[in-house]
């Protein structure tokens, strides 16, 4: 700033109310005003400090905040219950015969199952369902290792390879429980898709 402007400010250390002063000292030509702190800034700062005391008091001193562990366990339990209920609900209307004659013949359901197959199952069971990679069992060899009823297939997809099974030989590979990521409806549609590709095997149900 120019000398003329400099002279309009009082030089010194302690500002009086409403006054802007220019500090005496200069560093390599740099000067400093000494202005009051903006009120909105101060209130932001004070507000955060007050919030700190309040929140810590509520959380730690009074112990009013539920622990993360309690909260999450309750929430996930609720989801699990809902899942079990949904599964029971689906299963109550689902019989071997319904799967074969209603689901596997309903084009929209088979299509939904196919879509999931192409996205997820295909990685191990292959595009032609014959598991060329040997990562999983073939789905078109007329062998149903874990039970050949339609509902067995449903349960296998939902629960994954049964714990008592040793899985694939010799790798020990096991299928994940897809009930974790898919709803019972979706599992049923995957089952329907598999049945639709193996009509002969399930014609007796």
């Amino acid at each position: 700033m120019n000398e003329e402007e400099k002279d309009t400010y009082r030089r010194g250390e302690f500002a009086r109310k409403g006054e802007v002063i220019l500090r005496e000292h200069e560093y390599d030509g740099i000067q400093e005003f000494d202005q009051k702190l903006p009120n909105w800034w101060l209130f932001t700062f004070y507000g955060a400090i007050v919030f700190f005391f309040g929140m810590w008091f509520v959380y730690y001193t009074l112990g009013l905040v539920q622990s993360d562990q309690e909260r999450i366990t309750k929430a996930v339990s609720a989801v699990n219950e809902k899942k079990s209920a949904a599964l029971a609900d689906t299963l109550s209307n689902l019989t071997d015969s319904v799967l074969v004659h209603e689901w596997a013949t309903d084009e929209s359901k088979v299509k939904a199952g196919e879509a999931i197959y192409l996205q997820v199952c295909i990685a191990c069971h292959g595009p032609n369902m014959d598991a060329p990679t040997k990562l999983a069992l073939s789905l078109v060899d007329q062998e149903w290792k874990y039970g050949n009823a339609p509902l067995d297939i449903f349960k296998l997809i939902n629960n994954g390879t049964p714990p008592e099974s040793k899985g694939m030989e010799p790798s020990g590979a096991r299928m994940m429980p897809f009930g974790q990521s898919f709803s019972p409806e979706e599992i049923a549609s995957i089952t329907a898709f598999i049945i639709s590709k193996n009509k002969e095997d399930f014609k007796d149900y």
Partner: protein
Amino acid sequence: MGEKSRITFDDRTPRNFMIASIFWGIIGMMIGLLASSQLSWWQANGKFLEFVTFGKINTDGLDLITFGRLRPLHTNAVIFAFVGNMMFSGIYYSTQRLCKCRTASSLLSFLHFWGWQGIIVGAVLTLPIGLSQSKEYAELIWPLDIAVVIVWVIFAINFFWTLARRNEKSLYVAIWFYIATIITIAMLYIVNNLQIPTSLTHSYPIFGGLQDALVQWWYGHNAVAFFLTTPILGIMYYFLPKAANRPVYSYRLSIIHFWSLVFIYIWAGPHHLLNTALPQWLQILGMLFSLMLWAPSWGGMLNGLLTLRGAWNKLRTDPVIKFFAAGITFYGMATFEGPLLSIRAVNQLSHYTDWGIGHVHSGALGWNGLMAAGMFYWMAPRLWATKLWSVAWANMHFWVSLVGILLYVGAMWTAGIMQGLMLGQVNESGTGLTYEFVETLQAIQLPYILRGIGGLLYLIGFILCAINIGMTAAKGKMTDVSIETYLLKPTEKDTESIRSLIFHRAVVYTGILIALIALWFFTPFSMAATLLVAIGMVGILVLFEFKWNGKSWAKFHDNLLENYIPFTILVLVAVAIGGMIQIIPSVVVNRHVNIEGRLQELYTPLELEGRDIYVSEGCYNCHSQMIRTLVPDVMRYGRPGVADDYSHLGESIYDFPFQWGSKRTGPDLAREGGEPVDDTKHVRIGKRDNLWHMKHFLNPREMSPGSNMPAYPWFFEKKTDFKSLAKKISVQRQLGVPYPAMTAHEIEQHAREQAMAIAQTVMKDAYLEDRPDLSGEAMRNHLSEVQFTAIVAYLQKLGAYTEQNPDKRPHPLDPDGNLSKFEP
């Protein structure tokens, strides 16, 4: 007043640092650009070399440039090479002028400059070959860490020696920030890099699991604070008023925001670990201090922007002011976003997504990069005694950068929020998740590409800068500026005794208040009320004292500024408190109690080796190992039917270093592993079997269509280092991991057996394109020797733990070894 004398500044050092900063900056940004393209096109991990060399190099992926190894190189290059050199340039330039004396030792300046460049070259040579500690922004291996400490000490000696020789009684605010930088970075870097070497290039940190996480993010967050923020604030305080030719807006704001910033910043580290297994009190403390940090940060922004009052007209003509004004604005934006992201509820959405990447880049590109450019354009004409070669090019640089940053940050916000929302979306029935992980990754491909374009624009901007500065240098002449000044006699400066200043009433009162508040953190209800009253009373007392004796307090601070040693001591005290209160309880409290009922199973020697490969490949750059206490996390990554399947503290207790991660470009791997297969000692099958992993490492897209993970063909060529395991396990035992006593031979034997057993499971169906000759037993023997079996052993072990009664302690260190799970 002493005699008048002529002083010539050492301007060679700032000049060298400036050139180094621009050079490394461009390299670091290019690496960033390549890394960002790897997220869109997996071929960028090496496959592209096939096209550009017309098939001469035939590879699905080149280990040296995979994302996991490049990303640490990028972060280290831009933080330590680009901003580091820039900060040294500004500090050497301004400190001499603010102290009216030449830097104390040209030799030390020389050693500092070349030592630092040597470390950077060391990083460039080690990180791409997979030598890494895996602690973010502290990946450098231990010999380089030692070099960093030595060079930093050289810098500190040179700096404080210059302060001692100063011809200016009082320290300007820029110097305060430089002092805070030097002291705090030394403290952080040393503590976070405490480690025990197992070889010349490998070590284990002395902290593991929770402790390591806490120390790492205390460091990581404050590297941002004291490497990317405080030195740049100091630079702002020098160069901005110079360039604008206006007085600094408010001296008292400088004082308040300096002390509150350095005191509060250090507490905010735990906000990098919100909703994880980190104890809740630390999470809440981290969040609340982050919120309190908002105002001190904005204090710096205000002091910068309001200094421009009366100089805004220069915005039209002077590119320096343009860069500074925009840089400070980005600082304000990033320091508002930071506290916002630290709110636990917001963090649920933002953490592990690209929002964090966007946030850090609005700071790095917006604040650091623009401030650097402004400073370079201001310094270059003065260092080469000429005019800037082209103002138009500098303006072009500004606009290209600005568009680049906005594109970058906007794209990352979009990507982060979109992916966060998709990952948390529950399907209609409320029982499952709507999207597979890979679907969320595919959904953000467009923002990823836009981000790359933003980064490219920014890089172009800096290339314009390099040309502009280069041309300026070419037409000018290297000049060392000299001034006439009065010399201060030793008796005229630093006159107060240390004791009288650090035990001044202002300090003692503040100390008592902070001690009471710290005590209050940990007291139960009955005492808390009493303490609160005491805090209130002391608080009021301090207020009254300040009201009546304000002038003496102000005098005290002015005195403090004239005595650099007590000032430095008080800064050290202010920055040490937060870390001590947060970290010490977690280190001294018996770790064995703090496991939340689950105790991690020990890694077998082969699994440990696999883990070291995981660390070395930088898998943590994309994969977390932390199921947060959030419903979508537990639903996605937890086991079916287990309601409390979030990650418990004890599950990573033996992880040196911890691998909780900070970003998920791929899914979480905390429960990737599983139970041992019946009838086998060593083979585990987790979510996916060994053959799946084999095919996945060879071609991730075959197993997971749409994945952008690089292929790892060298896992099937590089030999597992069985020989190093004995030393590694002995160091792990030193660290308190209860390994049974085993001879070196037994350890190697055990690892080889396990590798053989794993190879056995895949030999029948394994096929390696590069080795069509291998099949049957030859294939098995080959696989048992290569890294694949080690990394698979580790992956299949992830998440293995034993249930513990809360009161039952885990196995003590037992030299006779009685761990049945472990017996060969």
